[in-house]
Structure formats: structure tokens, C-alpha cells
């Protein structure tokens, strides 16, 4: 067969084949050579050699050739980078949003001015097709800096109550090296943070070129520090005491380790992890367009995409037809030299990854899967894997659950929209989803039901700086992009949300021999589960004594089974999320009304437990009523956003409830602490398992009578009394609880965060600091009580 340059026009006229169309690698190779093919670390505005002097090779996966030697940073280097960032941070923040905007703009412009070099270098180092780095990655990088130049410019006026977190440690993956750098650095520095970023060891080069751009842009020293190396460097960053925030994109396994390592340190954390995102095709879809969507979903970047539409769910009636179309389309994919401008599929990033893909596919075939591999030639050497479609698997199969991170699509059929949703959500992950249907009713009905952070309707893998990106479940938490992404790099301004934080004073139940209560009839407080009063599973109670030892009543000692029952009840009440804000508001007002009617009783109760005069007790009840009014007010007002993304259409940012939230309530404010946390949770449509103040539990157990008389559906609020450390552990470990909040005076923050790694639930803990309960701090609670889902809706007829 003739090929390449010797083919004549006459031959080509007859065979109408494509010729080679290689992009020139020279500028990128010259840049590498100009640096002596050896790179130091970018610390405090300059390239420096490592203290330890270790380095490693970075290779072109398409050829196996060594491109350069990159430094393996050591502890001293990490220390130096963090110190540089630390030193630079106050000045950078003080520069103000408008000053920072100029720098971000300069970076955006420099990325555009060097776009060809960046694209070629990215493709050389990563193996992705030059079309993708040129048309997708690099333009999105520039877009991200532009968008966040604007975010910086507007920060003081639009986010007056927010300030920088401090120094951010950022660890990024190899699949979109420069794009992930942009996603991390742009919002961080826009909000006044400084950063220490570690690129993946396979793909460090564009980050190092970006460091040069930082110098060229005149970015103040130490604002951006880039240190290279393997996972050990990542661990040093995660563990470093000088870092206030960790942002990680990568595997769920490593994300879990980072969560465990940062537990209790007070470091803010966002994780963008793996996925097994469903690609749902209904029988009325434009099947040809859906097939093309799959090309962009799973055969984009060799399938090495965290949000790859890797799990095809197709309605039975069109499954065979769609599979035929997919197979035909696969045969037209061109696999080869990533620098060739007419290549669809480039090289897998590294032989290790290639091996992982092969092994997983073998396992799928052993489990009964039938593979179709694209009938297209593969290059003889280099790291390549053919596009593959696997049918014949069921949800129970490994490949239906495990992320492959390669060009392998698994397919399964469904019968009804409800079954599509059920199958789509039958996964530990929850990153993204595609929905294909020509029926707007169907598509917009399904999108909110999918457990994920991004939904694309009749499209896939659409990204923009103006829309948040991020997942739920084991796909991590936090958003990148959009206004929602800015909160990942800010914290409430000290003084704005109340007084400066003070340590919370540990409180314990009053112990001793109870003095007689003097009550004519014995009163036993129960738990409240599924709208019913429940006795503790343990069958044990403790006496609740007043400050002078008077017996006030008994309270059940809850255990893990009580938590289990309460979580079950909370899930049964999930329909609460689909009620209207108007209804939830009415119920919250009604609760307030009924509490108000029992003002005296609750004030007496608070006073009897805590002592003190009647004034503070009445004030707490009054504040609780007001708090209920505040959250009734918010119930129908936490609007989402319509993001201005560059498509003909919109991205709807919808605030969705998080799910079941376990709340360890404040000990020091038995009623207000309970109401200030459960009210925002239920106002936003969550259901709750609340563990009330353990020293003063009786206000909460009285309160369920108020709930009972206020039309609150059973299971929306469940109250389990008991010792916080015991119950918090069960809640944090529970895989069917989506979030845990703790305002307890017990020292349990570290334990909760460490125990939350099972399902990577969102945790919000006080780290031993007290909260000013006189302030509703509504914005903060709203953010914690909701997850933003971005639904991309292109339109046009």
C-alpha cells in the first residue's frame, strides 16, 4: 500500500484518502532545548534547582521519546514554595480585585499570544490530538483567565462579605494539564489567594511554560509557585501547615486519602474526582447526533476525561439501531500521531494507563461483555488503545461501575424514563450526565433527577468558565467555574458575619444524684424518627438535671441503630425535595407560629436546663422564632442562575438540596442552635437527622411536638439524642448520608472529616470554634444546604 509523501495526485484522485497533516513540533522542541531539556522549580518568581537535585524523565507517549528532565521536589522545596506564597499573599490580596484583574488579563492575553506553542507542547507531553489542544484546551485556558479577570475586577462590589482564604495548594491531573492549571490558578489568584501548584508528573511541561508567562506578565513574585514531582510532593503539599486550602482534581482513591489527611486541620477542601457518567439516549432522540455526541463524550482525549460519557444507556426500541450507528462511526475514527491535524484519537498518556485500560477491558470480557473495536488501523508503536464498545453487560458488571479512563464505552438498555434515571443513578459517582431527546418535557424532567453536578441536554462535554463544574457523591465536592466556583477560594470576611470566632466552650451534662423533679407525672423524652416518637434502641436513658441537680426528665441514649433508622426515615421523606418552596415556607411559618404559642413553656425549659434568668431564655426562643421566619423567607428565594455560556442556549445553575444531612447541633444554644441549622436544611428541601445538644437535650425533644403539630411530613426532621462523638461517627461513616455538619462542643471535627471518606460526603465542621447564633449567616448556610447543578440547554430548530 502506498502511503505518505510518495502518493501521486492520480493515486489520491482514485482513492480519495486523507494525507498526513502534521503540525510542526519544532517551536515546542526548541523551547525545551532552549531550557536545556531540564527544568527547575518555579518558586518565588524564579526557576530554581531542587534542594535535593533529583529529577525524572517526561516522555512523549506517542513515541516514547524523552522530552525533558523535570525536577522531583523535596520537602525543602515545598517549604520554600509555601513560604513564598505565604509571604506574597497579604500584598496580593491588598492589591485589590482591580489590581489583580490587570494581571489576570495579562495572563489571558499571553496564553492567546503563545497559543500555538502551548498547544503543541501540550500534545507532545500528553498525547492528545493537536485539534483538541488547539481548538479546545488552550482557548478554554484563555477563557478562564478572562472570566476570572472579570471576577477579580468585580470582587469588592459583588462579593463584599468574602475574602481570600490564603495560600492554596493545588494538585492537578495529567488529562488536561494546562486547562486544569487554569481552572485552579485563575479563580484562586482572582480572589486574592496565592498558590502552590503541582502538575501531574507525566505532564509538567505546559505548567512550566505557564510559569514563564507569569514572569512575562509581571506577576508579583510568589503569587504563583509551581513545583513538580510525583505523588510524594502532593502529599507534602496536602500535609503542609502553611497551606489554608487544598484543591485537588484526580482519582477518587487519592481524593479519599487527601480528605483523610486534611481531616481536622481546618484546611478548606474541594475535590473533583472520578466519574462513570451516564449518556442517556431516549427513543425520540436524533440518533446520528447522539452518536456524534458519543464521539465527543468518550472518544475525546482518548476517553481520559473525568466526566466522559462512558456509560451509554439507550432505550430498548432504538438500542440495536444506535449500536449499529456507533460501530459504523467508530470505524471512521482516525487513530494516530497526535500532532496530525486529521487525527481523532491520539496516544494514551503512559504505558501504565494503557495497561490499566487493557486489564479492565479483559475483566469486562471475562464477565460476559462483547467488545467491538474500531476497524481502524493503530500505529505500530506508541501508547494506543482502539476505540471500543462493550455491550452485553449489566449493572452488576465491573465495567458498568468502575471508571476505565480510556476510550471504552459500555452500553446497556432501559425501558422507561424512570428506569433510565434509576440506572443512571446506580453508581457511586455523580459527576455529569448527557440526556438526548427531542422532547423538551422529557429532557427537562429527567435532568433534575440525575444525581450529578452537570447535565448536558442534547450535547456533551461542554465547558465554560461561566458555568460551575463539579460533582456529587464520590465524584467529590465543590464547584469550579461560575460564581459558585469563586466561593471555593473565599471565606466570609471576619467581622462581616458577626464577632471574631472564639473557641467553643466544651459543655457536659450535669451529673450527680438527681433531686426530685416535683412533677406529678413522670415525663420521658423520646426520639423522633419518621414523624413518630421512638424509644432508644439501647433501652437506656440518662437523667437530665438542672444546674442545681433537680431532675428535669430522662432522655434516651441513642446508638448506631437509632441513627440507621433515622437515616432510613429521612430517605423515605425524600419527596420533600420536590415540594414547592412556597409549601416549605408555609410549614416553616407554621412551626414558628406554634413555637410562639408555646413561648413560655420553651423559655421555662431553657431556663430550667441552663439556669440564668428568664430574660436570656425568652430571648433564645424569640430568636428561634425569628430564625424560622428567616428560613421561611428563604425557602422560595434561593434562586439559581442562568449562566451566560457561549452557546445558543443557556446553562441553568439550579440550587438542589444536598440530600440527607446529619447535624450535630450546638450544645450551648439548645433551641436556637437546633433551629438555626435544621431550618435552612429543610427550607432548601433537605431532610435531616439532628443530634441535639447533649447537655441540654429537652428543648429539642419538646420541639418535636411543635413539628408534629405543624404539618411537617414525617421523616423530614428526625431527632436522635445521644452522645455526640458516638452518633457523629455513625453519621459520618454512613454511606447514605450526603453531608454532616457539626457545631458540637465535643472535639469531633477531625473524626467527622476522617470518617466521611467512605462516600466522600460533604462535611462542615466547626473545628472547635464557636458560632454566633444571633446571626443567621444565611448565605453560608444556603451554600452548605445546596449543591449547584448546571444544566446545559442548547436550543435551535
Amino acid at each position, binding site marked *: 500500500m502506498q502511503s505518505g509523501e510518495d*502518493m*501521486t*495526485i*492520480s*493515486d*489520491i*484522485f482514485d*482513492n*480519495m*484518502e*486523507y*494525507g498526513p*497533516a502534521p503540525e510542526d513540533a519544532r517551536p515546542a522542541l526548541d523551547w525545551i532545548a532552549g531550557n536545556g531539556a531540564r527544568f527547575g522549580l518555579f518558586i518565588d518568581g524564579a526557576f530554581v534547582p531542587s534542594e535535593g537535585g533529583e529529577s525524572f524523565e517526561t516522555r512523549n507517549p506517542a513515541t516514547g521519546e524523552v522530552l525533558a528532565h523535570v525536577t522531583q521536589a523535596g520537602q525543602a522545596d515545598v517549604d520554600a514554595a509555601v513560604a513564598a506564597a505565604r509571604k506574597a499573599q497579604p500584598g496580593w490580596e491588598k492589591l485589590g480585585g482591580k489590581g489583580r484583574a490587570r494581571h489576570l488579563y495579562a495572563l489571558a492575553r499571553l496564553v492567546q499570544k503563545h497559543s500555538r506553542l502551548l498547544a503543541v507542547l501540550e500534545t507532545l507531553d500528553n498525547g492528545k490530538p493537536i*485539534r483538541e489542544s*488547539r*481548538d479546545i484546551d488552550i482557548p478554554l485556558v484563555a477563557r478562564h483567565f478572562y472570566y476570572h479577570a472579570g471576577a477579580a475586577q468585580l470582587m469588592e462590589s459583588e462579593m463584599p462579605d468574602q475574602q481570600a482564604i490564603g495560600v492554596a495548594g493545588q494538585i492537578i491531573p495529567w488529562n488536561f494539564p494546562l486547562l486544569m492549571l487554569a481552572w485552579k490558578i485563575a479563580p484562586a489568584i482572582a480572589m486574592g489567594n496565592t498558590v502552590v501548584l503541582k502538575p501531574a508528573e507525566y505532564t509538567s511541561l505546559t505548567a512550566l511554560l505557564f510559569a514563564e508567562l507569569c514572569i512575562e506578565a509581571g506577576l508579583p513574585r510568589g503569587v504563583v509557585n509551581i513545583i513538580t514531582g510525583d505523588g510524594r510532593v502532593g502529599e507534602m503539599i496536602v500535609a503542609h501547615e502553611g497551606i489554608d486550602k487544598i484543591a485537588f482534581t484526580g482519582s477518587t482513591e487519592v481524593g479519599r486519602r487527601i480528605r483523610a489527611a486534611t481531616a481536622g486541620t481546618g484546611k478548606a477542601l474541594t475535590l473533583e474526582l472520578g466519574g462513570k457518567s451516564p449518556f442517556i439516549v431516549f427513543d*425520540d*432522540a*436524533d*440518533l*446520528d*447526533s*447522539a452518536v*456524534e*455526541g458519543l464521539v465527543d463524550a468518550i472518544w475525546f482525549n482518548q476517553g481520559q476525561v473525568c466526566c466522559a460519557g462512558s456509560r451509554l444507556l439507550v432505550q430498548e426500541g432504538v438500542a440495536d439501531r444506535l449500536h*449499529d450507528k456507533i460501530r459504523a462511526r467508530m470505524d*471512521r475514527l482516525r487513530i494516530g500521531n497526535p500532532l496530525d*491535524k*486529521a487525527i*481523532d484519537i491520539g496516544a494514551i498518556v503512559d504505558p501504565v494507563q494503557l495497561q490499566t485500560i487493557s486489564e479492565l477491558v479483559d475483566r469486562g470480557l471475562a464477565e460476559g461483555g462483547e467488545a467491538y473495536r474500531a476497524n481502524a488501523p493503530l500505529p505500530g508503536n506508541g501508547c494506543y488503545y482502539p476505540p471500543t464498545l462493550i455491550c452485553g453487560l449489566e449493572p452488576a458488571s465491573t465495567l458498568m461501575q468502575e471508571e476505565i479512563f480510556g476510550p471504552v464505552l459500555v452500553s446497556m438498555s432501559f425501558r422507561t424514563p424512570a428506569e433510565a434515571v434509576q440506572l443512571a443513578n446506580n453508581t457511586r459517582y455523580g459527576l455529569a450526565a448527557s440526556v438526548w431527546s*427531542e422532547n423538551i418535557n422529557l429532557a427537562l424532567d429527567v435532568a433534575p433527577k440525575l444525581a450529578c453536578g452537570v447535565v448536558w441536554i*442534547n*450535547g456533551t462535554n461542554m465547558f465554560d468558565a461561566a458555568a460551575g463544574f463539579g460533582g456529587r457523591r464520590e465524584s467529590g465536592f465543590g464547584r469550579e467555574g461560575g460564581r459558585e466556583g469563586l466561593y471555593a477560594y473565599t471565606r466570609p470576611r471576619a467581622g462581616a458575619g458577626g464577632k471574631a470566632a472564639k473557641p467553643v466552650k466544651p459543655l457536659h451534662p450535669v451529673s450527680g444524684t438527681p433531686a426530685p423533679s416535683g412533677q406529678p407525672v413522670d415525663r420521658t423524652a423520646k426520639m423522633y424518627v419518621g414523624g413518630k416518637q421512638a424509644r432508644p434502641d439501647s433501652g437506656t436513658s440518662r437523667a437530665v438535671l438542672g444546674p442545681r441537680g433537680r431532675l428535669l426528665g430522662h432522655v434516651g441514649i441513642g446508638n448506631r441503630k437509632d441513627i440507621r433508622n433515622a437515616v432510613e426515615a429521612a430517605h423515605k421523606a425524600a419527596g420533600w425535595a420536590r415540594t414547592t418552596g412556597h409549601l416549605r415556607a408555609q410549614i416553616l411559618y407554621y412551626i414558628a407560629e406554634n413555637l410562639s404559642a408555646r413561648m413560655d413553656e420553651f423559655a421555662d425549659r431553657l431556663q430550667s436546663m441552663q439556669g440564668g434568668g428568664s430574660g436570656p431564655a425568652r430571648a433564645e426562643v424569640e430568636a428561634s422564632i425569628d430564625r424560622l421566619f428567616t428560613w421561611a423567607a428563604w425557602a422560595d428565594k434561593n434562586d439559581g442562575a442562568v449562566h451566560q455560556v457561549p*452557546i*445558543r*442556549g443557556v446553562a441553568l445553575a439550579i440550587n438542589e438540596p444536598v440530600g440527607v444531612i446529619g447535624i450535630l447541633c450546638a450544645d450551648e444554644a439548645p433551641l436556637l442552635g437546633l433551629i438555626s441549622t435544621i431550618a435552612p436544611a429543610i427550607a432548601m428541601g433537605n431532610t435531616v437527622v439532628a443530634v441535639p445538644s447533649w447537655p441540654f437535650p429537652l428543648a429539642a425533644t419538646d420541639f418535636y411536638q411543635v413539628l408534629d403539630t405543624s404539618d411537617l411530613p414525617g421523616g423530614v426532621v428526625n431527632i436522635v439524642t445521644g452522645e455526640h462523638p458516638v452518633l457523629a461517627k455513625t453519621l459520618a461513616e454512613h454511606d447514605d448520608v450526603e453531608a454532616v455538619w457539626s457545631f458540637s462542643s465535643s472535639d469531633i471535627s477531625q473524626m467527622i472529616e476522617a470518617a466521611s471518606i467512605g462516600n466522600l460526603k460533604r462535611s462542615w465542621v466547626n473545628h472547635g470554634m464557636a458560632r454566633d447564633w444571633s446571626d443567621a449567616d444565611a448565605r453560608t448556610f444556603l451554600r452548605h444546604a445546596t449543591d449547584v447543578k448546571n444544566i446545559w440547554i*442548547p*436550543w*435551535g*430548530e
Partner: protein
Amino acid sequence: MPEKPNAAGSARVSDPAPSAMQPAHIARNPGMPLDLDLVRGVAANTSAIERRCAALPGRRSIKKQWQAAWLLKAVTLIDLTTLSGDDTERRVHRLCRKAMQPVRPDILDALGMKGRGITTGAVCVYHEMVPAAVRALEGTGIPVAAVSTGFPAGLSPLRLRIMEIEESVAAGATEIDIVISRRHVLGQNWQALHDELRAFRAACGDAHMKAILATGELATLRNVARASMVAMMAGADFIKTSTGKEPVNATLPVSLTMIRAIRDYQELTGHKVGYKPAGGISKARDVLNYLVLIKEELGDRWLRPDLLRFGASSLLGDIERQLEHHVTGRYSASYRHAIG
């Protein structure tokens, strides 16, 4: 199971006379009864189709000798067209000579394509010009196509439209570019459209029918897809985008919609139907994008004159300049190439 194509509707289904249009024995599409379920079930997602078309030029790159070869291929696919009120026999004669020798012989020689019989795919004229074109092209094998049926609006009496086809066939046209009644599409009156096209196809006899959908007047891609399907069910040999007289003529999204319909029709019936984008394709760069689209979506078999034509008048001039540039390395001027 797809319904078997029904030959009853095509009155004179006989093997057509051999022509340049049928070098590789493509069985002619006999059509089939109107399948309304299928027509109504057609889906065309505009936004996704536009995205595919926007990304495509970046996905493929045709350079160097490949570009020259592909452009020469494009030349052989052109229906060299004149459709003006001031057409005369002499004007048509000049066009026909250009069709016979579309590229300067020295350029062909330099490209190693001398003796490869590079001509345009056909010459396309109004009915009154058919005899002149037939005379000028006698013995060349280049077919004469006539636009017909009250072109371009298609609003003359049906009886006259049918008679017009018959007259053009009698005058020697072997390809008839008919226009459909857009109102049948806009009113979703698929039976009327099918009937009309059936009648046209019967009148064509052995001549090949290219059904012009006038996509610029059909409002939506869904309508384009449905009209494409009905035209093929009625026995169209080609489906064609435009008369060149609508406000919007051939576009990549319209083309993608139509060729996907062609692919579906082939899956359904086994018959290959040709495609002709017309109007608005005037640059070499544009025609390469069309060729890539056809190759990617329909496959190489469609890159031949029996299944692909470009309705164009000024495209050839741009291709000639590009070909000369390929030979000399210098940018060319239009006056260096003969006009048609």
C-alpha cells in the same frame, strides 16, 4: 423489517442508458410507498448538527497533493450551471466547452492528470437551452441536466410542470432537476409531496431525477430531513438543496441533515441516493469541507459523480487558481483561466 420498495409507482423502470452518471452500476432508486411513521419519526437536532459541522473543518486537514487531488475530484462533480434570463445558445456553447476542458491542459499535465478525462459532472441549463447543450456536448459523455417544473418556484400548473419534464427529456436532457412544492412541506402534507414527486419521476422516465428541496424555504432542519425522506421514497435519484435562488442555499448543516437521511434510506431500502448541494459554494476551501463531510458521513463511494454533484458556477474558477498555485507555488489570477 423495512417495506420492500415498490416498483409499481415508477412507470418506466428500466435500466437507464449508460452515461457518465452511472459508471459503477448503481441500481436506481425505485422509491417506495410513503411510510408516514418513518417520515414523522425523523429527528434532526439543529444545535447538535451545527456543532458537528462547526467542528468538522478542524478535524480533517487536506493539504499538498491531497488538496490538489481532492480539488480535481471536485471539478468532476460540478454541474456547471447557467440559469439566467439572458442565456443564449452561444453562451451555453461556451459553457459546454468549459465543461469539456475545465482545467488548463498544462496544469493537468503538471499535476500528472493528463488523459484522465477530467470534465465537469454535467452541464445544467433551462429547458430552452437543452438542445444547444446536447449539440455542444455530443460524444463527450457529459450529461445535460435541465431544471424543470416551473423552476425555481414550482408554482405553475402541475400538468404543465409534468409536461415540462417530458419536453426536456425529449430534447435530450438525461438529468432533470425538479423543484418540490414547498407548501406541501410547510403544511406537513407528505402525501401530496409524495404524489407530486411520483408524477415527476414517472415523467422523467430514464432520465435521472434530482429533487430540489429548496431548503432555504423549508424553515427547519426537521422539515429538511422529512422532505428528504419523502423525496427518496418517491424515487428521487438525487436530493438537492437549492435552486440557487433562495435567500439561503447550501449550508453544511443542511447537507449533514440530508446526507444522514440518505444514509438512513440506504439502511432501509439498500438503495443509494445521490446528493447535490447547490448555491453558495464558491470557494475551494468550502468544497473541501463538503467532500470531508460526505466522506465521513456517507463514505468514499459517494465521492463519485453518480452520487455527488455540486451545483455551482463560480466554484470552478477558484479551484483552477488553487490548482495553478499548487503547480507554481505562486498565487494565481483569474484571468489566467478560461471563462465558461
